[in-house]
């Protein structure tokens, strides 16, 4: 420590006893990046295992005889059998799960096409265009989101019965082409409203009309909303039970959800192992579809149309 000498024009430092700030948390044992990475991954993997445990349990029990289903909590314990898969996939007079898979796939694909077609157009109309009654119609759209299905189920059934559509896939698919899924319409509307209008104006200057703007400008930029709509429409159509239960009575036209229910009989004999086996298989198309559209979703978010 130096003693300051006034007038000499030098700045001197007056030493001050150093006081270290007190730590709220103890110092980390290691600052190694590798250890931190391992710790992060270990925690993440543990959380994933916990969240996936029901699926793991289902897959594990799908390889057990019926009598041994549910006897153990940990996987890979107890007897192993492929009988559940073999018997579930074997076509029978009472059930043909392969046909059910195909039926659900057809309904799912058609539902996706319908929703994308109708919801994108309606979303563009509400998000960009001005027309008479727009506010009232949009309010009705929001109101549809609030309606519980119990309110509409009987009138819809009567309508389809009068149209002669019962025991066909029409009640499950045609409404998708009429933008009845208000949630996805609302999703599209909000997404369209978030797109800058500069591109629209540029397109109009180049001679595009309303549909031209939609087809050339809006639709390419809607890819995240399109991916979301496609994914969740397919998942919902694949898992839907009430709709097919009401409208499909021919067992050859049963969907996967209807077919899976046939494995359980609370008034008789159930095949829980078979149910788990077929449920495991029924999840695979959903995972595949989700992975495919997830890539599309990510690419859509990464690009905005501006350079």
């Amino acid at each position, binding site marked *: 420590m130096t003693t300051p000498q006034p007038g000499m024009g030098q700045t001197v430092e007056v030493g001050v006893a150093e006081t270290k700030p007190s730590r709220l948390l103890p110092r980390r044992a290691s600052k190694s990046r590798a250890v931190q990475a391992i710790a992060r991954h270990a925690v993440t993997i543990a959380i994933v295992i916990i969240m996936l445990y029901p699926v793991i349990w289902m897959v594990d029990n799908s390889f057990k005889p019926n009598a041994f*289903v549910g006897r153990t909590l940990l996987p890979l314990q107890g007897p192993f059998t492929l009988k559940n898969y073999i018997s579930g996939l074997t076509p*029978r007079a009472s059930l043909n799960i392969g046909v059910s898979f195909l039926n659900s796939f057809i309904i799912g694909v058609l539902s996706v096409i319908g929703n994308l077609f109708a919801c994108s157009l309606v979303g563009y109309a509400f998000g960009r265009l001005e027309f008479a009654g727009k506010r009232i119609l949009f309010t009705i759209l929001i109101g549809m989101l609030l309606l519980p299905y119990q309110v509409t189920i009987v009138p819809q*059934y009567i309508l389809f019965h009068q149209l002669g*559509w019962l025991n066909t896939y029409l009640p499950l698919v045609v409404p998708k082409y009429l933008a009845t899924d208000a949630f996805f319409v609302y999703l599209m509307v909000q997404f369209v409203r978030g797109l800058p209008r500069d591109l629209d104006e540029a397109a109009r200057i180049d001679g595009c009309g309303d549909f031209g703007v939609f087809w050339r400008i809006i639709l390419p930029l809607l890819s995240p909303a399109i991916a979301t709509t496609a994914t969740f429409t397919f998942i919902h159509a694949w898992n839907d039970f009430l709709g097919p*239960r009401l409208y499909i009575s021919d067992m050859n036209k049963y969907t996967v959800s209807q077919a899976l229910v046939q494995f359980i009989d609370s008034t008789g004999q*159930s095949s*829980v192992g078979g149910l788990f086996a077929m449920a495991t298989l029924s999840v695979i198309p959903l995972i595949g579809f989700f992975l495919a559209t997830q890539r599309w979703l990510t690419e859509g978010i990464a690009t905005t149309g501006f350079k």
Partner: protein
Amino acid sequence: MKRRTLVTTIAFAPLVGALTACGSSTATNPASAPGGSAAPSGDISFAFWGGQQRVERTQAVIDLFHKAFPDVTVTPTATGDFNAYWQQSTVQAAGNNMASVPQMQNRTLADYADRGALAPLDDLVASGAIDVSNIPKSVVASGRGKDGKQYMIPYGAAFASLMVDTTVIGKLGLELPPEGYTWEWLSDWLGQISKKSGAPAINVFGGTSDELEAWARTHGEQLYNDDGTVGVTAGTVAGFWNYMMGLIGSGKSQSAQAGVEQQKLPIEQQPISQGKAPTMFWPANAVATVQSTLDTITPGHEIQVFPMPSESEGVPGNALWLSGLSISKNCNNVPAAAAFINFFLNDKDGALAFQSDNGVTTNTVNLGALLAASTISDAMKKQMNLYKTLSGMNLPPSYYGKAMAQVFQQNLISAFQSVSFAPGTVDSTAAQFIKDAKQATGK
């Protein structure tokens, strides 16, 4: 734009056509009037509940019917889930589009008969188009509606039972339930089992209408009165729950938590089927399933079925739950529907093919044939013999009113669960449960 519209229309037209073509024609050919001499012809639809085994056995009966009546085509539609079947039936009834022959149950008949969704069958029975001469009159009477008309012909009888692993009880050195055992005897017996085995002896049944019904019947009441009003009182419900809570508290039964976990398990995963509990209240028609599951897990154990506990006079609290066939009001081929019902009820080969898959056959002649058949398992025969015993006991008739499923199967579960985790609320919860029941039934 016009060209695009045309292209779009052309693209979608085959789609709509294909989807429409997926539908089969539901038109039926009206046959001659009931009682006419012409053989029935045309199409009818038959809706029922059940899993794969039920579907296969029902199809076997339908195939036999087609041979006997080649001009009639029966299109079956099955729902594995029992509750989903009623949900679907309710919507179909509201849309006046029930199946030609919908399967019914006496416990839910009022919801459809009282609302005019079913056609009376009295004329068909009187003319002999549907022969009920081999079905006990008291059983046939259970298919009547509030107005006294016949809306359902019962073909299968299910009933509650006490399932007992007699091998385990024998190893514990205890006696089996005697004829006419009471609820008090049961509690003491379960206590001996749990004391000797060190484990709970029975399942939690406080939220199950089957056992509440047996309790009510052994205490002078029924779930419903004969006029469709709620018959059980809050005091009886409270007494039943106090009995159950006593079993839980003393360790004679599973815990309340275990009861919730096991509520929705299929019978194959219930503790008695897994060899983890020696007794259980469960409908007797599952005895074959329990036995076959137990034979795989722990061979050498025998399951026996006993009636429900009795009142002091020795009459068990059992009620018969009857599954039967009806004709919907919107059916436009009644002769074919009647012919199918008559065949299902009375054809012996059909009964042997169906094997009493949905309750013991109510046709006494066919019951004798099934008991003598080598294709019927010993476990199934135990159920059939118990039914013979019960049907010979002159059980008081059981009545059911509206909203049976909602009140005594759904609300009862949630009401008991709230009691089982808050025991001090038994009386108030029972009072509220009965109040809600009366509101739901409108009486």
